[in-house]
């Protein structure tokens, strides 16, 4: 992964948020407050604008810039959480390139940042339900010596499974938690946007 690919990943994520805005909002209106799609779209549009003309010295710079822009523009819980994920991940990557193992370690730091802030664990019906399996799959592939593209494909698939697995869960964090048992049967919007982010990474690394 180099600076160019990192930028491409963020751009592909922005495109995905644009395309899936209404779907995310629809999922969020069932168990949240119907703003996840529009917030993510606003945030990543701002990220693309912020990266335009931005001179990055390393992979990490692109991700830190992405994170700080998300924190400044998204609002809600998604802004601080995704912002922290990208920012903390980026802070671990100082070089102009990152291999699969370096990326895996940086992602794990990003996840730790998210869990420190949001205090969510697997099964709470949040983005963590997609993020944890994605990073587990990415790390396992990286340690087995697989390429970044292979690791990213496994991460995307695991995130999508994790996303689908949120359907039968009862929410214990965020606004959906107020629904209690009524949150069962709905897919978590945060896990869905996380799956989009890893699908974008897999697509970019594949090409």
């Amino acid at each position, binding site marked *: 992964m180099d600076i160019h690919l990192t930028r491409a990943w963020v751009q592909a994520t922005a495109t995905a948020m644009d395309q899936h805005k209404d779907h995310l909002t629809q999922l969020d209106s069932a168990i949240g*407050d119907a*703003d996840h799609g529009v917030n993510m779209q606003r945030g990543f549009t701002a990220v693309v604008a912020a990266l335009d003309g931005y001179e990055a010295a390393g992979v990490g710079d692109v991700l830190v810039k992405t994170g700080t822009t998300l924190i400044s523009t998204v609002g809600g819980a998604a802004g601080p959480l995704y912002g922290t994920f990208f920012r903390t991940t980026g802070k671990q990557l100082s070089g102009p390139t990152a291999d699969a193992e370096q990326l895996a370690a940086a992602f794990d730091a990003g996840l730790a940042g998210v869990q420190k802030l*949001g205090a969510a664990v697997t099964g709470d019906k949040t983005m963590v339900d997609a993020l944890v399996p994605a990073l587990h799959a990415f790390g396992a592939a990286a340690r087995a010596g697989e390429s970044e593209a292979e690791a990213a494909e496994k991460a995307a698939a695991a995130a999508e499974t994790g996303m689908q697995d949120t359907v039968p869960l009862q929410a214990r964090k965020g606004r959906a*938690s*107020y629904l209690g048992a009524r949150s069962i049967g709905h897919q978590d919007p945060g896990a869905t946007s996380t799956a989009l982010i890893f699908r974008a990474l897999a697509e970019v690394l594949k090409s």
Partner: protein
Amino acid sequence: MKKLINAPESVLSDALAGVAAAHPELHVDTQARVITRAGGPSIGRVALISGGGSGHEPLHGGFVGTGMLHAACPGEVFTSPVPDQMLAAAQAVNGGAGVVFIVKNYTGDVMNFEMAADLAGDEGIEVATVLVDDDVAVKDSTWTAGRRGTGATVFVEKIAGALAEQGAPLSEVAETGRRVNAASRSFAVALTPCTTPAAGKPGFELAEDEMEVGVGIHGEPGRSREKLEPASAIVARSLDAIFADQPLAEGDEAIVMVNGLGGTPLIELYIAYADVAEYFAERGVRIARNLVGNYITSLEMAGVSLTVCKADEQMLALWDAPVNTPALRWGV
């Protein structure tokens, strides 16, 4: 969706332009999205800053002014503000005695204010946070994000704001805010849902003869969905829920707010207040002060929220202190 707007994307900036035009006594930074008092910081005094998603007007911008808030940070509709806004607000209004963040307990608000407190701390601004969580409709806080912050926010902002105006130190202002929150309980019932401009359709659906009992200020579902009842029954079940959580005994004094959710005619709020007054009278609890009107709304939702604060002498004295804001004004 039928709304008096120009475009869904520009709702907040268009509304802020209106606030700026209507209230020369306020300063509206439309770029930073911060509303402050026009006079600048009060040197040597603690400054109160609140914020949250828009769509709950007059909360919070309508409570900026002498005796209440120093700054308000409006987010997009039903979306918490971002840390940059609270940092900009803290920089603008810190008079050297520190700032109090008044935060309604929602996951997003808590996280964004927490990040802002860190950033402000890095700049040498002392920050104390008062978390408001008064909604008794949320029962099992172990398995949820905890009680939601609703009507008690108005009480906290008024009473802590009066204390800050008197020159009390940061810790005392924050502690008093927490005391007001701890003494306050709210419960709401919705008769109709509300529609955010971005979503374009109602956040939930209610049949013509249904009501949502224990609804949140963003239309979050409450305890149950029931057949519509007369005002007296709605008031009784709401106050039963409040009193069950915090009993008030004969001889106690209370500040009571009967609050519309944006779509309730004032005449109906007075019908509800008559039932509230009777409920309290039957129990020998004195309503020492009251508010009847729209103070913390949910866009165009119809329904009512009741907030009861078990008040002591200090709270009542601070409640009576002068306040001069767009939405609350007395003693001036």
